[in-house]
């Protein structure tokens, strides 16, 4: 599955973008990940991931409006492209494929 390259954190970011739909911009994505997955996300890591995703063509971005809170700086909204959708689907299928291949007993043992 070398066709779609998606790092672990990148996958989280792109999935979050998919969740947020039209409301996906830097701060909101960070906030969403932090609340849903209760993990700290650094601004640097997230923006690097966004830049990588955009360079790979999985997301596209456009400038949006600004608020007082942002001191007049515009939001940059992100949305998933077709390629991005295929990439997360491929990633999901790969995981399901692997999950389904795990013997039941292992699962049970682990659960216990």
């Amino acid at each position, binding site marked *: 599955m070398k066709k779609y390259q998606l790092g672990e954190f990148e996958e989280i970011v792109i999935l979050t973008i998919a969740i947020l739909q039209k409301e996906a911009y830097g701060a909101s994505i*960070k906030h969403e990940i932090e609340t849903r997955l209760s993990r700290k996300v650094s601004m640097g890591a997230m*923006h*690097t991931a966004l830049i990588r995703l955009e360079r790979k063509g999985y997301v596209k971005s456009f400038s949006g409006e600004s*608020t007082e809170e942002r*001191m007049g700086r515009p*939001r940059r909204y992100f949305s998933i492209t077709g390629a991005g959708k295929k990439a997360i689907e491929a990633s999901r299928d790969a995981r399901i494929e692997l999950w389904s291949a795990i013997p039941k007993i292992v699962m049970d043992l682990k659960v216990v």
Partner: protein
Amino acid sequence: MKQRPQPPSFAQRLFRWFCHPDLVDHIEGDLFQEYNQRIGKVGKRKADLAFTVDVIKLFRPGIIKPVEGYRHLNTYGMYKSYFKIGWRNLVRSKGYSLINIGGLAIGMMVAILNGLWVWDELSYNQSFDNYDRIAHVAEISNNDDGSRGIGTTMTYPLGTALMGDYRHEFDNITRSTSFRDRIVANGEVAFTATGLYVDPSAPAIFSLHMLAGTREGLSQPNSIMLSRSLAESLFGSEDPLNRVLRLNNKSDVMVTGVYTDFPQNSEFNTIRYLTTWDLYLAENKWIEQRALTDWRNHFIKIYVLIPEGKTFAEVADKIKPALQFDPLDEELARKKRERKLGLYPMSDWHLQPPWEPDGQVNPLVMVKLVGIIGGFVLALACINFINLSTARAERRAKEIGIRKTIGSVRSQLVSQFLAESFLVVSSAFILALGLTVLALPGFNLIASKSILMPWNNLWFWAAGASLVAITSLVAGFYPAIYLSSFNPVKALKGNLRMGRLASIPRKALVVFQFSISVMLIIGTVVVYKQIQFAKNRPVGYDRNGLIMMPKRTEAFNGKYQVLRNELKNTGVVFEVSESMGPMTDVFSGNGGWDWKDRDPSYDKSFGTLAVSHLHGKTVGWQFLQGRDFDIDNPTDSNGLVINEATLKIMGLKDPIGEEVSWTWWADKGRVMHYKIIGVIKDPVMESPYSPTKPVVFYVKGLNGTPSWMNIRINPNISASEALPKIEAAFKRVISAVPFDYKFADEEYAKKFGREERVGNLATVFAILAIFISCLGLLGLVSFMAETRTKEIGIRKVLGASTLRLWRMLSKDFVALVLIACLVAAPGAHYLMSEWLQRFEYRVTLSPWVFILTILSAVGIALLTVSYQAIKSATMNPVNSLKSE
């Protein structure tokens, strides 16, 4: 209003410093948003810290701005887009691009060829190292008609004076003979070659490039220097140095040097050897006997090298007193012409010759003319570009409107269109270079030049670059101004109506194009008519099958009768005679003639040519009265044959048997008495454009001996069959001399060489000019037809006939061409009458030349227009109405 709390400024500045400018705004926004939310939760101090930590964590490869700069700080990208758009426009309309680039390429080819020609002319003689310091010593006289006469043939005592008392005025000086044809023989191997007899200083003055030996090689009397080509012909691969050659079967000379041949475009391009002045004196004893102090006999050339830093005028002033006159001439020289000594610089030799043969265009004028024609043909191609660009402006109106709306300033649009024209012109230039390479051999042939493409010459490329730049500007400037002037609102609404006035400049340019083309055509036709007129002139003798042979050496002496008998015995020779000079020239002229009832004021000279008996029979004189010199009639040795022109001057009613006397100018006591025995139709011996001069022929005269042999081949035998037999007979009698001959008809044809060259060049230019003009017309009419496709469709549906549609589409253009003809005809008439004034024997400009040219110009234009007009007129209206 309460100021929001600010994150620490150093962190902000740090972030702004390292962040990629494309990212800075929205990441900063995110940072601020986080910060503001944190302030609410944890307070300003902790928020400040978190902000700083965030900023530091952002310091990572994807976000830091690249070191080499993220953005082009020049307008390169804009120019790239200009060329991209320009290229797309070219590709989208291939037909017009073809017309534009093709036409421009042809125009530029003509410009390049003409440029090369002009350059070749201007660089004539520049191969001499001392180009700007060499001059002929010349006698300069002011003629009665205000013109300046320059004589470069000097007297012997003048040379002596300049080389003696006046020597210090020059850096160097050499006397020289005029060009001499000599037989140069290495044992059996012999060639006729042209050369000079000069003083030992000549090789240095003319900066010979020595391949063997030194420039001092002419210090011994019997030495000779050979050009490389002659040395190779004579010795092959052997070393020519110190070998002995025989010159004209008379003098033995030793080779002391070999030099590189003079280049083709130099005065001495035919010179193959240089030998010594002492040898000249030794070969010509008469000089020491009679000419050393004779101030009348002009027969030598004097070349001088003036000192550096001095002007020709300064030096000329200093040497003026050196010129003396024979007491016989003194009065004449002072009163009539004021002959003065002067210097005639090398830079003038080619472009301002001392005298112009009848009808010949002054070389400097010719250079200008060729330059102007090249410029005009290029201008025609530029006009095509201008017309097509402005006519198709509507196509690009939307683009211009949008560009302006987005914020293009007019000057930016102008540079965009100039960039487009630069693109077109550059591709045309590359194409033109290719065409020039292909056309150069043909051009050299027509112009009788040997020009090479100067690929390695920086000046050539500089000139090419400026040609491209200037052409782009000329062709692109008006369209750029015109297109960029559109009002964006109107252009975008799509109701940009050009109006009737908009097409007026275009029409004017078409008229200009065709005027130039028609003028060129008329000029060409007139040149050809004039040549044809002169060619059709009755020649007065028979040129076909007539061989002329110069008697170059003394080996001929006393052999004439033997040779004549041998030749006649071959059976292929009809008759043989001797004459002074060839049939195609009058070598000598003298005054002192007297006859019955002579007008005492007549003091002009007659051409005086000595011939042998039966000369008339050999060359085919056409007798009006009387007869040829007859061998069997002893009194004929005092007979005189005159031409019609002489008869007219003498005004004798019944010339045969009239007595005529000739007093020798140098010795009043020597008078010859002749009886006229024949009058011949004027033989054209000199310029076919001048009236025949009076010439008299005699068997025994006071000057000169027959120096040429004429051989008339039996009319029933072809030249190729006769020549080997003639050569064999010749070799039997005179074995040491190469069999050198000339055909009279070929020599005669050479008289038209220059005019024919001009005519051929003019034809090529005229054809290219009309071709380029028609190309433009084709572009315009097909554009018109394209924009009117719907209209034509509707007209057809409503019942218009093909003929009517054709007339509708062609009418305007034909009218333009007609106007152009009306402009061109008077101009051409004026210019060509002026040109014809140069010829005394000239064709009259008949109105038919103009009528036929105009008809054919209109015809060609009509054909061009009709091609497209008929194509559109016969289109199926269903298709044309359905299109879109």
